[in-house]
């Protein structure tokens, strides 16, 4: 392989351009969120606002019950995560470690759900929720995701890799099964659990479709929905306030991404490599 300086330079410029294509829109979002309305409408555009207008964030935050949205988002994302842990850990353990009649049938059923996205069946689920009187409550946002086929699949893989002798030893000491799960399985599978948690939390924190379908009032709306409603403030679109509102949604995720980039990428890429 020849490495010429020119080749290195071209490669470097290329890499820089790629980074720009993906990062620059976010920079533009930040820049816009600090501008005055007048500044957003200048052409050619101003890269750095003359004054940093922090007011835009207050405007966005006060244009609706944003604290409520924020709280709802947090309750839904964390609630889903807790319920998922409670349902997937025992299920994955049973699928990985027990032989029982019908286990492959139940596992097939689990895998089928992995293939059915919510976007396909929202209408019947909506009708179901309506007949149970759960529409426009946080339950309608949490319950359908209280378990995860993906989580069971992932965790089962890692439970199956744990050597049988380890369990035999524990059973010899007459440790109950729940203790084996808590003291042996979970600590060993911890990286997988963290990976899954990141994946689940980010997906539901970002979700717009399901809350849009299941809620009709502010009492159960989440942050992405609240942000999407910002368009209707003041008649015309105020891009500075709109981008400020979106920063509230994006910045926490980007900060987490900055510190846990490896784990997050692994969490999302795992779906593809299995």
């Amino acid at each position: 392989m020849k490495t010429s300086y020119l080749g290195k330079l071209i490669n470097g410029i290329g890499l820089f351009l790629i980074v720009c294509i993906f990062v620059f829109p976010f920079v533009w979002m930040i820049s816009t969120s600090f501008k005055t309305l007048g500044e957003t409408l200048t052409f050619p555009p101003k890269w750095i606002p003359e004054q940093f207008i922090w007011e835009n964030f207050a405007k966005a935050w006060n244009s609706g019950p944003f604290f409520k949205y924020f709280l709802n988002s947090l309750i839904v994302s964390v609630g889903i995560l807790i319920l998922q842990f409670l349902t997937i850990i025992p299920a994955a353990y049973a699928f990985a470690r027990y032989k029982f009649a019908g286990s492959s049938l139940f596992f097939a059923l689990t895998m089928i759900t992995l293939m059915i996205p919510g976007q396909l069946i929202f209408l019947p689920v909506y009708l179901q929720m309506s007949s149970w009187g759960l529409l426009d409550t946080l339950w309608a946002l949490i319950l359908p995701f209280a378990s995860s086929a993906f989580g069971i699949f992932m965790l089962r893989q890692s439970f199956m890799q744990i050597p049988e002798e380890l369990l035999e030893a524990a059973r010899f000491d007459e440790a109950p099964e729940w203790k084996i799960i808590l003291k042996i399985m979970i600590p060993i599978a911890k990286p997988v659990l963290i990976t899954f948690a990141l994946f689940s939390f980010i997906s539901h924190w970002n979700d717009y479709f399901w809350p849009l379908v299941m809620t009709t009032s502010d009492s159960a709306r989440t942050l992405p929905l609240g942000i999407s409603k910002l368009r209707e403030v003041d008649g015309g679109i105020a891009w500075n306030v709109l981008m400020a509102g979106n920063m509230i949604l994006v910045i926490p995720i980007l900060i987490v991404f900055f510190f846990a980039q490896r784990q997050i990428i692994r969490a999302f890429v795992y779906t593809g490599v299995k």
Partner: protein
Amino acid sequence: MAWHKLRPYAMIAPAIVIFCLFFIYPIGYMIYLSFHEWNFVSPDKQFVGMQNFASLFGEREFIEVMQNTFIYTALTVSLTIVISLLLALWLNNNGSVYSLVQGAVFSPHIISLVSVSMLWMWLMDTDYGLLNWFLNLFGLANVSWLTDPSTSLFSLVIVAVWKGIGFNTLIFIAGLQSIPRDMYEAAQLDESSKARTFWKLTLPMLSPTLFFLTIIGMINSFQVFETISIMTQGGPINSTNTFVYYIYEYGFRYFKIGYSSAAGVLLLFIVGLLTILYFKLLAKRVHYR
């Protein structure tokens, strides 16, 4: 029965109950509804047989929706796959600069589609958007990205490709890194050219990944909703109306539950076919690995 025999069932029960209640049963219910006419309010559902399906295909608007969805899917998936593969070949390097670039390319994937949609609405604004300013720099005229029916669907494709490239690229890189080193060494010994190595070695070894990304990409694109709901609402003049948005509109705005269920069943059928196709192809390919 002894507890140890019941125990596995008790452990999978919560998950299975959730799956049955919110995935399996709704599918049955949707199929049932697709054979009925119902406006959500009236107490009785009237059985109409295949009529909902017949009127779906008789509706010009729905034919347009199908066309839009297919065009959107074909463009999004093919562009994403080709660009991601090229990027993966370029960025497949464990150096720290490269992992930084990989992170940057991946970042849109974890951002909410709400923010991505609004950001691109702003970038694609006809009068003050950055994209048109950029075109002007090169002496090109303004494009009405989202408000012109001839460009609106393609504008949504751009957004989807931008958001999807990172995920696809990283999966391709994972695929590339799982190809055994010694195969490349053998190719080098044979003095195989770079292009030849790519076509004869890299691409065949990558084919399971390629299948996976193509099918997953198609399944996802068929269900596009968020960008449409936020950026175009299906317009202008129906040019960006697609499957899920159509189902949503007919179910929630016009309360034609049976009719929109029929569209849902059709979509489910297409996605099911794709999934089966994927597993068939995968089963055929397994012996290569």
